[in-house]
């Protein structure tokens, strides 16, 4: 399936759940989800080092409960595409995404993952991970600071708690 279409469908699905009877159950589950994103330890390049730095004593991602990096994608909720996604790596990234259980989210960390970044015109690099996996939050930067990553994760938290908001921003623009 086309990844853009996939992302739109996922966003619409998240927004539509507001109308259903189970809304308060969903809200409760979402409360749990937004307070414990467990990222898949999936680092590609420079940004992976900043991702690791965000767990160190100074920045301490764990204050939000987001620090439990899981080695197996089966136990992860969040994939942080941190670094340059090359053409050789792209199928593997997609497979890791497929292996993760629903509900799952993707953050593109760094310009390489957002849209190719410095290597956008290289023959070997996928210009933007959103042609491989549907991305929820883009964090520009080269590499983004650990605080930027935290801001991105808090941004994702807002999106999950209020899925309509993310769509709204797009339509207003």
């Amino acid at each position, binding site marked *: 399936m086309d990844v853009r279409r996939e992302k739109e469908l996922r966003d619409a699905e998240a927004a539509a759940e507001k109308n259903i009877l189970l809304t308060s159950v969903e809200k409760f589950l979402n409360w749990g989800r937004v307070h414990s994103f467990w990222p*898949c*330890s*999936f*680092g*590609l*390049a*420079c940004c*992976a*080092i*900043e991702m*690791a*730095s965000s767990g*160190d*004593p*100074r920045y301490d991602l764990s204050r939000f409960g987001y620090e439990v990096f899981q*080695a197996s*994608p089966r136990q992860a909720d969040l994939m942080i595409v941190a*670094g*340059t996604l*090359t053409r*050789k*790596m792209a199928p*593997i990234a997609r497979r*890791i995404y497929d292996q993760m259980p629903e509900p799952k989210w993707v953050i593109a960390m760094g310009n390489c993952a957002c849209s190719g970044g*410095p*290597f956008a*015109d*290289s*023959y*070997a*690099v996928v210009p933007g991970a959103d042609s491989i996996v549907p991305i929820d939050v883009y964090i520009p930067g*080269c*590499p983004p*600071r650990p605080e930027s990553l935290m801001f991105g994760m808090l941004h994702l938290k807002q999106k999950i708690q209020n899925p309509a908001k993310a769509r709204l921003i797009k339509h207003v623009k």
Partner: protein
Amino acid sequence: MIIDGTQEYSVNMGPQHPSTHGVFRMVVHLDGEVVTNVEPKIGYLHRGLEKMAESRTYNQFVPYTDRLDYLAGPHNSLGYVQAVEKLMGIEVPERAEYLRVIFAELGRVASHLFMIASGSLDICGWTPWSYCTRDRERILDLFEMTAGNRMTLNYFRIGGVSHDVPDEFMPALKSFLDDMPEMIEEYYGIFFGNEIAQSRMKSVGILPKELAENLLITGANLRASGVQYDVRKAEPYGIYNRFNFNVPVLYGCDTYDRHFIRLLEIQESRKILQQALRDIPEGPVVAKVPKVIKPQVGKVYHRVENPKGEMGWYIVSNGTTKPARVRIRTGAFVNVQMLPAIVTGWKIQDLVTIFASMDLVLGEVDK
């Protein structure tokens, strides 16, 4: 294949695996827990950097060099800008030379700290990892206050450096150097001196001297195998011949020594940094260079001692503003080939420590 009634099987480790430090892939052939063979597969981070250099001017390529070995950005740029300066015959001001040495050595310390950190993490030492990254942050602070970024500095320019350091840099560096012995004591206490860690690493993954020389291993991995070879001493570049420092050598050839020599090198870097701090003169930080860098037709090879090994820059100029060909000889890429040579017969757990001790950065391996 049947060996003594047991069957070999192969396991795929990577590209997404917690201990491959990025996107390295190994096809591991196992007999029970014992590794019989390893096939390294690289190229998952191949970004075509050498080709990209051909479509960028000499100045524009400088920021890209930081992304090669992203743990020690400054030293890559140092090799590149010195190669271009060699090609054009540019003299760099004194102060800029000292600043280059300071940043290159800080980058080396940061890289080695991260190597020790990830090496301990690979045998489940979370706490040493935290302590090493905690101290690495102080170096990144120094980088950020001067160059403006934590890892990808883009600080060196052809003919000097981009800015002079801010006023608070020198005191901060000095206090960092003063705290360093205490830090090293702590790493030793929690990681290197720990008997369990020693039993994990000592006499594991022996890389004999002859093999290391034959495989063209460079950098700290070679020095841990008993060869006293360092480009900073063998063919001093920049102003490295002015500093008084030793090249640490260990003769154990094992994983422990490959980790431990990094700790010794941090101490040597401290010596260099102290001398640089003492001797640094005032003055301009960038030489008069033409606005458009346009070297004459020719080629140049320049090598530097990157934290990961010997890094060589081969630049061919055809007289235009863009290089005709750039070839990068990276230490990590050559060091990959020692993995299958030394891992046979060890357990899958040792494979992880041996891999960590090689200190690969995939940005440098795949370019």
